[in-house]
């Protein structure tokens, strides 16, 4: 019992950040992401005995989270398409050059179609290999590589098309 608790706490400590970020990029909403992570870890707790290989923990948790996210859509479909996703995070309050750039890039990433952004997030944030991502998303590896290529390509083009001055200008 105690060891299970210890294992669980270690797992949460090590991976809740990554999982939260992943959830955030899946649903683009802080609150929903938090709920998803909570639900995921609760399920993980119940099934913790089935996790034999600690190295596989991250992909295991991500698989649970994706399923949980899909379930959210089964329950009710939020009308998300109407709403402008550009205003997803407020990092503009204290702005340094770096933060502004991040903000701008975030918008671009969230504008990517989900089938492109998801492998990209898994690769960059999760550090998974093409094979791992293919297994997690139930795709073949070539498809994953193509999507990664397109995702980066689109971001790069967006960056190159970027105006020299950006930010908000009033008046």
């Amino acid at each position: 019992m105690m060891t299970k608790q210890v294992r669980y706490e270690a797992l949460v400590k090590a991976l809740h950040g990554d999982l939260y970020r992943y959830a955030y990029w899946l649903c683009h909403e802080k609150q929903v992401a938090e709920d998803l992570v909570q639900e995921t870890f609760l399920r993980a707790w119940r099934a913790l005995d089935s996790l034999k290989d600690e190295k596989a923990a991250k992909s295991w948790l991500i698989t649970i989270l994706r399923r949980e996210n899909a379930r959210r859509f089964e329950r009710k479909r939020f009308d998300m398409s109407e709403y402008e996703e550009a205003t997803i995070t407020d990092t503009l309050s204290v702005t340094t050059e770096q933060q502004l750039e991040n903000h701008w890039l975030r918008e671009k990433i969230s504008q990517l179609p989900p089938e492109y952004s998801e492998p990209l997030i898994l690769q960059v944030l999760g550090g998974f290999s093409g094979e791992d991502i293919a297994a997690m998303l139930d795709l073949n590896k070539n498809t994953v590589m193509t999507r990664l290529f397109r995702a980066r390509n689109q971001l790069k083009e967006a960056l190159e098309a970027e105006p020299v001055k950006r930010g908000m200008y009033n008046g």
Partner: protein
Amino acid sequence: MDDLQFRRAIYADPNNQDEETIAAQQQDPSKKQFAQEICQLDEKIKQALQVPVPDDLYNKLILRQTLATHQVQKRKTRVHLALAASVAIVGGLVLNFMQFSSAYSNLGDYALAHVYHEQGSFANNATSQVTLTSLNKKMAAFDGNFNKSLGKLLFADYCRFDGMKSLHLVYQGKTSPVTVFVVPKNEQLRFNADFNDKQLFGSSLQFSNSNIIVVADKNESLGQWQQSISDTVNWSI
């Protein structure tokens, strides 16, 4: 490795450690530069993806799990308690059933078993005798009385007839004692008018509130016994 292939490989995975792509970079400085650009882009993407994680998320996760565990344990103890209670009830019922249900399904079988069980206690030529008055006193419990004696009554007392209070009478017979039971009516035991086995045979008479069962050996005339019982017994209402 041609340029398109190289670009595709780098775009798909900027940290590509493939020998071919590394070799291509070393051969062609423009390719190297391109790879570096994409690496920089990737670094930016990485930066951008690092959205701030809520500070209290870790604590919330632990709290939620602790609460869930607690609830599961509470539910478990409740289930265990319910299980224990069910087992106790079933145990009680089984015990009850075994103790109080009769092993015999009809009057005849039980009467024969009863007679065999007490066979040794009564001798046909015993000297003791019960008077008609004391017999009738006992019969009063069944709202009945005999208006004359049926024969030499050796023994008369209440006894348990499959758990029911009944009157057990033993008369002197031709070769062995004749047993008469006065039994209140009961639904547990099926009524059977005539029954027998190798040694004994018996018959039952049905009255309004009681059955009278006669068991005797094969030398007796049961018909005669039945007749005289019917003639002598009176039931008060």
